[in-house]
């Protein structure tokens, strides 16, 4: 008798393979653990940068900031992304995962690596921030931990690719892979490039830290490190855009407006993002303007174009689906009548708007060669990446978690009222934080700085009162966002432990990566995944007029904000 390894979720119809399911759960749970750790240290950072509270002493502040950045930007997002990769390949394609045993080795390496990095931080001699710029040294176990983590993640990427090959060979689906899997594939390809860059620079840096190499050039370090540091954020973008499409499909049954456009946009990410990490080097010596201008833009900003396309097609596909359901009045009835009380949707939509309107626009503006002069290393930069990573990526991951807890973990969500409000509380707190960090940064306030009043300094300087007030408000935003983040962690962990079992086999252990009871797995081989039904859209079909108007508003904001900053640039000292 063949072993039954699959179960079909009765609520969503999705098929889960026993081994892939366990890997998904383990990675997602570890991700949330690091979100919690990173979030706690984020709260400490926010409370210290509020001039009125100024909570931690300097040394602890820099340590807390190093942990906050690394735990969130690397550990939380990449652990969760690994879960997304297993989901996009095994679950969406109804396929067994390639080499699940090696998948566990990858997972263990990631856990071990991340623990080594945390130990290095907590020992106090490695407060080198997420960027660990040489020649500021960290302990060898810091670099070693990052390398082990990266190798583990690399294994996850190759298992994803292997699973795609198996699905093709065993004909588990018809036609081409779904758009969401396609997006996850771009994330995996970018991840492989990113991790390779990380290895190229971190291995020599590890050797330098133990004394085997005498010197690492700081500019070479920065150039290669940013192919890791920024490209890794591009994994996030590909992953969370895929999740936006997935949520549009799950909540609204939306199909992409057109497969060709959305997929080409994902391809543009692969082709035009990588070296574009050059925008981190715009204020550096030793690199010419020609190189900087070309490598940030490739003359056409095609990666920006790709995000602008997704920015239209994701809400566009929701609008088309809603209009077909009859919400066809005016420009925005489709949006008004959307399920705003469902955190899966509200989280995703807030993520989309804040990522595009704030994260996207500020990113391009400060990535313009000359405008970077008024922004480089100011607190504007954290303002930007909280819009992209904390709202764009993190809130999208939170939103899909509200779907995955019942479907993947087979536990009912506890505390429904909190679930409903959590995306709004987290989003509002982050929005406050982001807007006022951008404001303070525009006034020149530095990032990664314990005391902008310079009370211990030999010389004196006072920032404008407005800048200090803005830091205070940003801190309040950070505290509110922490409340939202804590609510998410409580809901997630609480549901896994205390949530009503939707499957009798969903034991406590199964919430943390062990398989459910054998009786839960009743399917030997899922039916072949068929093509999506043909629908009449495009020419002559339903159009997304409301989304187009939103897109034009976005463009107007972009243009105005860009030229305001160009004007500001023209007011600083002439230099050449």
């Amino acid at each position, binding site marked *: 008798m063949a072993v039954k390894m699959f179960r079909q979720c009765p609520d969503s119809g999705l098929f889960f393979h026993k081994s892939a399911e366990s890997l998904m759960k383990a990675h997602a749970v570890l991700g949330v653990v690091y979100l919690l750790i990173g979030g706690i240290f984020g709260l400490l950072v926010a409370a210290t940068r509020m001039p009125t509270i100024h909570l931690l002493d300097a040394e602890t502040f820099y340590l807390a900031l190093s942990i906050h950045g690394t735990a969130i930007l690397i550990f939380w997002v990449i652990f969760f992304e690994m879960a997304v990769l297993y989901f996009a390949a095994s679950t969406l394609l109804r396929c067994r995962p390639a080499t699940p045993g090696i998948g566990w080795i990858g997972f263990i390496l990631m856990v071990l690596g991340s623990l080594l990095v945390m130990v290095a931080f907590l020992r106090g001699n490695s407060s080198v921030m997420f960027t660990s710029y040489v020649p500021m040294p960290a302990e060898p176990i810091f670099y070693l931990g990052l390398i082990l983590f990266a190798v583990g993640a690399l294994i996850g990427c190759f298992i994803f690719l292997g699973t795609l090959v198996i699905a093709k060979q065993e004909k588990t689906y*018809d036609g081409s892979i779904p758009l969401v899997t396609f997006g996850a594939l771009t994330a995996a390809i970018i991840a492989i490039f990113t991790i390779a860059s990380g290895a190229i620079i971190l291995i020599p840096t590890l050797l330098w830290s133990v004394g085997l190499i005498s010197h690492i050039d700081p500019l070479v370090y920065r150039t290669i490190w940013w192919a890791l540091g920024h490209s890794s954020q591009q994994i996030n973008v590909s992953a969370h855009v895929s999740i936006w499409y997935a949520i549009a499909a799950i909540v609204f049954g939306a199909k992409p407006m057109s497969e060709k456009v959305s997929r080409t946009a994902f391809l543009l990410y692969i082709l035009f993002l990588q070296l574009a990490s050059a925008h981190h080097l715009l204020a550096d010596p030793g690199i010419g303007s020609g190189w900087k201008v070309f490598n940030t833009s490739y003359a056409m900003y095609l990666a*920006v174009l790709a995000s602008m396309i997704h920015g239209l097609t994701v809400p566009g596909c929701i609008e088309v689906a809603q209009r077909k359901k009859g919400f066809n009045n005016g420009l925005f009835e489709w949006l008004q009548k959307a399920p705003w009380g469902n955190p899966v949707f509200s989280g995703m939509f807030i993520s989309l708007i804040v990522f595009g309107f704030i994260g996207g626009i500020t990113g391009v503006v400060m990535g313009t060669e000359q405008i970077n002069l008024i922004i480089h290393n100011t607190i504007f930069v954290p303002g930007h990446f909280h819009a992209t990573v904390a709202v764009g990526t993190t809130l999208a991951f939170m939103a899909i978690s509200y779907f995955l807890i019942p479907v993947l973990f087979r536990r009912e969500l506890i505390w429904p009222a909190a679930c409903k409000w959590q995306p709004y509380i987290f989003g509002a707190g982050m929005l406050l934080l982001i807007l006022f960090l951008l404001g303070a940064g525009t006034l020149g306030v530095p990032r990664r700085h*314990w005391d*902008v009043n310079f009370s211990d300094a030999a010389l004196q300087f006072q920032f404008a009162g407005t800048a200090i007030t803005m830091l205070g408000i940003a801190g309040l935003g950070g505290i509110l966002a922490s409340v939202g983040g804590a609510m998410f962690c409580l809901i997630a962990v609480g549901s896994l432990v205390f949530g009503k079992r939707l499957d009798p086999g969903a034991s406590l252990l199964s919430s943390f990566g062990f398989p459910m009871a054998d009786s839960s797995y009743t399917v030997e081989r899922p039916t072949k995944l068929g093509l999506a039904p043909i629908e009449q859209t495009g020419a002559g079909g339903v159009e997304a007029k409301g989304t187009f108007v939103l897109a034009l508003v976005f463009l107007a904001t972009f243009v105005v904000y860009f030229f305001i900053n160009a004007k500001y640039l023209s007011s600083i*000292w002439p230099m050449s």
Partner: protein
Amino acid sequence: MSIMPPAQKIWWKEPIHGIEIMWIIIALIWCLILFLWMPYWHVYGKQNLSNESYKTSPELFEAKATKMAKAHTVRTESKSNIPVVHPPVGSDVYLLGRMWQWWPILELEKNKTYRLHISSVDWQHGFSLQPTNINLQILPGYEMVVTITPDQAGEFAIVCNEYCGVGHHTMLGKIYVK
């Protein structure tokens, strides 16, 4: 459905919405403008980062800065007697970053042009001139040369905005413009 294979086996054959085409054209034009603005500003804008920089060593750069300070110091300031240097108009001016100070204090003349050389002798630092708000990355081993023309009189602070260790937040420098 985005979580199912496309209706057409070859996804390239799926139809495109009219508004998608329109948006792609509009967005591409804006992206081209964004790119063209950068070369445009190199020609017509007055705020561009120079392409001039040299490999150096901490010892070499420190020697140059000390030599300049010896020749042109006009007074000293603060408890640690930091020299205030008034270099000749148009000359090569050296500013050294180290844990945790910008050395020396400079005194420049308004609307006059100087060749400002900046480097670090230890870790990476961030040159952030406030409140005019000019921000540069300073690396050890690299000497950045910026031709600047202060066009506002007053007292300006150089904040360090690249994290450089536990005293980072005390790292301040000063430029007077008269």
